């Protein structure tokens, strides 16, 4: 295992180095996950850096990131493994063309070898020689049946393949599951995981994140930007802007060369931040009108 940071502070510093600014809670739970080898269930609104956390951890620990994007109807064949039956057929045909009836037993054993196995993300994470970071993204999109299937993997890090037997992890992967809380996950799954609730960051941390991601933006405008975003989040919107959207907005402002946030700039770039028709109206009315009318015309 490449050197895992020994303390929470070291891990937090490491995450900062790779461009992820963790809250204290995030750093602590990540530390626990790495030290204890327990999966982490990360919940929170969309766009607060759940997936980014997995990427950052992978970079920090110098491990490969194996990602399984979940969706409705995801099944074992796409998540675990599948037999490459085309190749199996070819093998059989090649065999029978070459040697006739001879060697049937050999073929039979042969076609259920690892050579004919198509590894899907979960099996890949388990069977990998080097330890990996496994990200199971948006687990709430799957059925409960799929969740149940994950249980063996999450508690024992092993997968049972009927034809081959049990595949056990030789190395301990760091597992992150993310959920947007679209449905309640089962108790059984939760029991096997550590729990981390990621929320929108406080003002200062968000400022730091925006500065980190969009270094070109001036300090004053970045400050104004996160203040406005915080104000918008306080409104009752269908979809409050996430960190990702703050960053996009910062980039847009940088691109436009805006030197202050006035009403005009705000109106022009609002669609970067807010993506519902009704929300747009609400934000324009409640936040937009409070901004200075023109840059430079005084606050």
């Amino acid at each position: 295992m490449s050197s895992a940071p020994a303390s929470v502070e070291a891990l937090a510093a490491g995450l900062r180095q790779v461009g992820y600014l963790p809250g204290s809670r995030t750093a602590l739970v990540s530390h626990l996950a790495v030290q204890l080898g327990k999966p982490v269930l990360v919940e929170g609104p969309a766009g607060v850096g759940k997936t980014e956390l997995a990427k950052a951890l992978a970079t920090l620990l110098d491990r490969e990131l194996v990602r399984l994007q979940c969706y409705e109807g995801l099944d074992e064949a796409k998540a675990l493994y599948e037999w490459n039956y085309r190749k199996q057929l070819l093998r059989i045909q090649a065999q029978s063309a070459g040697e006739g009836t001879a060697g049937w037993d050999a073929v039979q054993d042969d076609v259920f070898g690892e050579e004919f196995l198509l590894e899907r993300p979960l099996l890949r994470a388990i069977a990998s020689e080097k330890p990996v970071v496994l990200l199971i993204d948006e687990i709430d999109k799957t059925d409960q049946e799929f969740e149940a299937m994950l249980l063996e993997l999450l508690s024992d890090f092993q997968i049972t393949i009927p034809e081959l037997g049990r595949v056990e992890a030789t190395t301990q992967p760091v597992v992150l599951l993310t959920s947007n809380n679209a449905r309640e996950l089962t108790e059984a799954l939760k029991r096997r995981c550590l729990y981390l609730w990621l929320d929108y960051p406080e003002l200062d941390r968000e400022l730091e994140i925006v500065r980190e991601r969009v270094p070109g933006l001036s300090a004053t405008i970045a400050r104004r930007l996160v203040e406005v975003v915080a104000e918008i989040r306080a409104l009752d919107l269908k979809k409050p802007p996430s960190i990702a959207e703050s960053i996009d907005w910062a980039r847009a402002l940088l691109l436009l060369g805006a030197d202050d946030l006035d009403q005009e700039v705000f109106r022009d770039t609002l669609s970067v931040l807010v993506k519902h028709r009704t929300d747009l109206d609400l934000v324009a009315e409640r936040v937009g009108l409070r901004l200075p009318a023109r840059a430079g015309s005084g606050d």
Partner: protein
Amino acid sequence: MAAAPHGPTGPGPRQLRQAAIHAAARPDGVPGGFAGQLVVFCEELRGEGLAVGTSELLDATVALDAVAWSRREDVRETLAATLAKSPDARRVFDLVFDRFFFRAAEAEAVRRSSTDGEVAAKLADELAGDAQGDGEAHEAGEQQGGDPLDLDAVREAIARAIAEGASGRMADLAALAIGSVGGAVTDTGVVGVDVQRIRRALELRTDPDPQAPEDDPRREGLPREGIREFEQHLRHELERRRIERLGELPPARPLNQLDRALPTSAGQSLAEIHRVVRQLKRRLNTQGQELRGHRRRTQVDLRATMRASLQTGGVPVVVKERAVRPRRPEIFVLCDVSTSVTSASLFFLSVLHALHDAFRKMRSFVFVERISEVTELFEREREFEKVSQAIGRDAGVADVTGYTDYGRVWREFLEQTEDDLHPRSTVIVLGDARTNGRDPAEAAFAAIAERAGRTFWLNPEPALYWDYGDSVISRYAGHCEVHECWTADQLEGFVAALTGSGPAPEPPRPHRPGR
């Protein structure tokens, strides 16, 4: 914490836990040292309704090993990560954590028979204190040290601390406030009452005060959360003083419903209903398996056939067929949201919400005078609060008079679902069957019941009131199963009836007044 060895003759673990929670400081404390304390802590969490299993307890113990104990925030977060697995659980966890370690600190102080408040305060701070840095708190404390008995100055300092959300300073000021108001407010012995009195004496209000000076935060009104937090500090401080005075811990009480409830107030029962509905789904899925055995149109599974043919040298001797997927139950729910069921509609909506969580093939309607389909709304919105707001606001319920018109509802429902209703579907009506004197239109309801496989009616009124006034539940009872249902327990009863084996039981006859 004193570590006493487990003796074979000692009291059982259950009694020990109970004793540790409820008894005033026992001279020997809780056995098992920190692990023992952790068990007691988990027991308290369980007492507040959190599902904390032994595996979680073990996780917490192992996890604590991986962090430094010197930082209380780390300990708190570690325990939370392993024990509280949803935002709701986390809210309860925080409350219990504060209470538990506050009591633990006080109990320790009492045990050492130290009546010195400072020791207790120090211990409590060590164990449970606030998230915000204490450095700030000390500074602030010294700043305020000037003239502690000038009530106006104290008022202003508190208002400022609340407005700025500085919780470290608030904790210090709470002690100061009790001291300075103490003369004016007599100690009633009931902490809640005292808190309110002190709050009133301090004139902490959320509404703006135009007479306040220019830069005073009270001019704008104080944030509600801030005041609540300050009250929390007051409460702690008062409890601490009381323990100090009496020399023993008061008995622990479960959390106040108000403290733990969600902002939506349907919180706890919501979780309960979700649990029951999950159970309903499981039962519906497994039930009727024997009926599904008939193979109707089966398809040849080419891949499986190929694979089977490997055993016969590539000749497909055994033809494999695709398994017939069990059909998921289809559910139609009709939910009354008129004024006569206002108190119950929150319950109904949460049932509906939970059903949507569990079933994908489901259509739901709300009705007053006419019906309106809200399936999409439930699919789009996850948060219960938003759903109920949206339904109240713009679900498109043509609510002219606010009175239910069942006849119209049945006809519109039939119209909208005509193609989908079939003998496999289940129709569930949530309503009080109060027609306001209008035509109950049982014939239309009978037509629905006939088309659907099963029809259920959940009535939120106690059975005693059925058929009194304008309730016509018995007119419908002939066509469906009627259940009295206004608590999660009764919902569970309904689930049992719904999925009970054998033919549908005779619907319970509503209590009839002598006619």
